């Protein structure tokens, strides 16, 4: 049974994005960092990737720092588990609810970036809020460099069990265990499908 049978759907053309959808097809390599992020990131394979990342690339002035828009673009296409619609079009994720605290001195190797994403569930009793939040957290943890600490919360006053959901999403052990749960991973994989497949043909 659906929690919300008639969700409000936002017009995709009015949503904030930096993606130029037609150009993207012709020049797929232009959006360097995001394309890197969509592929299998090196740091997933090699734990010392960041060493090379910070040392070798820090003088690369072409490398733009990751900003809120880029983080938003990573999670916007995630598909809602019960509607074939993106979190962006359902208004679950909003650009203004993506907060990024970058380190004051990015050259310092110890510097950590903090990301806070606030989600607005479509209905205040949405039983899938935890799954959606998990999807957002996992998506960002996989796609962002390991120096990013991701926090996903339910926006204040938008959900009945916001505190419980927030605490679960902040618990790395619960998240780790959830990712070893096959049925949950099946749901997550389906939600992530639009992020991985080329979506703008």
């Amino acid at each position, binding site marked *: 049974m659906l929690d919300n049978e008639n969700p409000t759907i936002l017009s995709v053309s009015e949503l904030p994005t930096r993606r130029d959808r037609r150009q993207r097809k012709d020049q797929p390599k232009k959006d360097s960092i995001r394309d890197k992020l969509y592929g299998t990131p090196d740091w997933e394979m090699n734990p010392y990737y960041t*060493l090379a990342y910070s040392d070798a690339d820090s003088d690369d002035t072409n490398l733009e720092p990751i900003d809120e828009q880029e983080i938003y673009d990573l999670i916007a296409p995630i598909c809602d588990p019960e509607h074939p619609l993106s979190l962006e079009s359902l208004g679950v994720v909003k650009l203004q609810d993506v907060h990024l605290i970058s380190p004051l001195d990015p050259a310092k190797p*110890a510097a950590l970036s903090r990301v806070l994403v606030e989600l607005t569930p479509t209905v205040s009793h949405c039983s899938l809020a935890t799954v959606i939040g998990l999807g957002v957290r996992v998506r960002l943890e996989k796609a962002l*460099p*390991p120096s990013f600490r991701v926090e996903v919360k339910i926006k204040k006053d938008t959900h009945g069990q916001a505190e419980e959901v927030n605490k679960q999403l902040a*618990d*790395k052990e619960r998240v780790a*265990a959830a990712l070893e749960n096959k049925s949950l991973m099946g749901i997550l994989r389906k939600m992530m499908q639009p992020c991985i497949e080329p979506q703008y043909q």
Partner: protein
Amino acid sequence: MASLEVRIHAIAEFKPSAFPDRAWVSVPNPNNIPLIATATAEKSVRVYSLKNFTLHSKMEGGHNRSVRSVAWKPVTKNTGVLTVASGSFDSTMAIWRRREDGSSADLNGREEEEIFIENNVEEEEELEIEIGSDGKPKPRPRLITRTTDSDDENEDWAFEIVLEGHDSEIKDVAYSPSGQWLASCSRDKSIWIWEEIGEEGEDDFETIAVLQEHTADVKCVSWRKDDGNGEVVASGSYDDTIRFWKGDDEGEWSCISVLEGHEGTVWKLEWEPEVSMKRFSPEEEAKEDDHEPKIPRLLSASADCTIRVWSRAPTPPPPNKPSYFNSGIPSTMRPPPANETWECTATLPKVHDLPIYSVSWSPKTGRVVSAGGDSKIVIYEERTKGRTAVGGKIETEWVVMGVLESGHGPWEINHVVWCKRFDAGRKSEDEEMIISTGDDGAVRAWAIEEFVAPAENGVTVPVVAEGTPGTKVASSS
């Protein structure tokens, strides 16, 4: 004014597997054997040699999900067999055994074998030492160090038995100091107390108690040494509380104390070592007439970014105790185990700004080390501030002695522990190091160097060292 501080230096990195996944915890052998066991998301336990920081052996095939926790059974009698319990997200606990000489634990032949494990420092120190200064002959080496490319490296730990019962992920396992009990805790909100019955090695376990008062995941368990009244197990939970549990004379276990105060999940509990208990005990009070056993304090590390020190408060008179005069009928009820009242008596200086996953209290120096989501490793020391009165209680304060940032690069650190050094580079036989375990799958060893730092304006400035992963270390590649 000058103050004593520490620098934290990388000594070595234990070689991880080819494609390392998250490592959760590394536990040194409690009986002075130079081995440390690491629980990993690779569904295995890696055992490293502390003599040369190489992989010694592996426990594989016992779990089908992440191994979250691992515990060595303390050796109380010489059997020549090492026993390890591992707890997994697959909701089972496994018991592993390995002969000291490297072969699988063949328990029938065990009696004839030469006894090795001695709960004795000197015995262990002799390993591979040529001729001791006291003229002792070289003992034959009894630990076989295996290399990573050995094909049968995982065959020397025998998977003896699987203990099932929990409904969901096991978070932590712990043997009691006497070795009598094994505790496991889980997301199913319960703590199970197991006892190995029958002869050692028969693998017959009995569930002594299932303790279910926590209202959410139980994240950690830690045993308090027997003070003469029995061993107590402490548990920390996602419900933000700490509880103490104890069995009575009839073997009935119950909760004897609830410690409230944390505003986040309690990730780790650590009991005070004797060295610290002795240092701050007023000698005047330790007279003959004081028969109260000394109770160690407890440290707790939490997602609320604090580390708290808890102390036992003097037991208040039980409320509503029936008067001796009005009870006409003698009670057949046995009194429950004495409840304990505990209070938070200190909070360590705040350095971490993300959840603190681990804290360890050094049995040698009484210093404390902590680590967590912010990748920092922090060392604290408790110092005497003064006395409230002549012969009165000693007042102490906790100070930060040193901070190491990026202990595992940008990765979170899941565990830190004080550990004796056994490698050739140690400066003394009882030198300690810190072992850290991280999300990068790495296990690292850190040495502590003391120095006297001049304080600026009377304020102690902690020294910040950079722990870059590329730091050249003395490990063999």
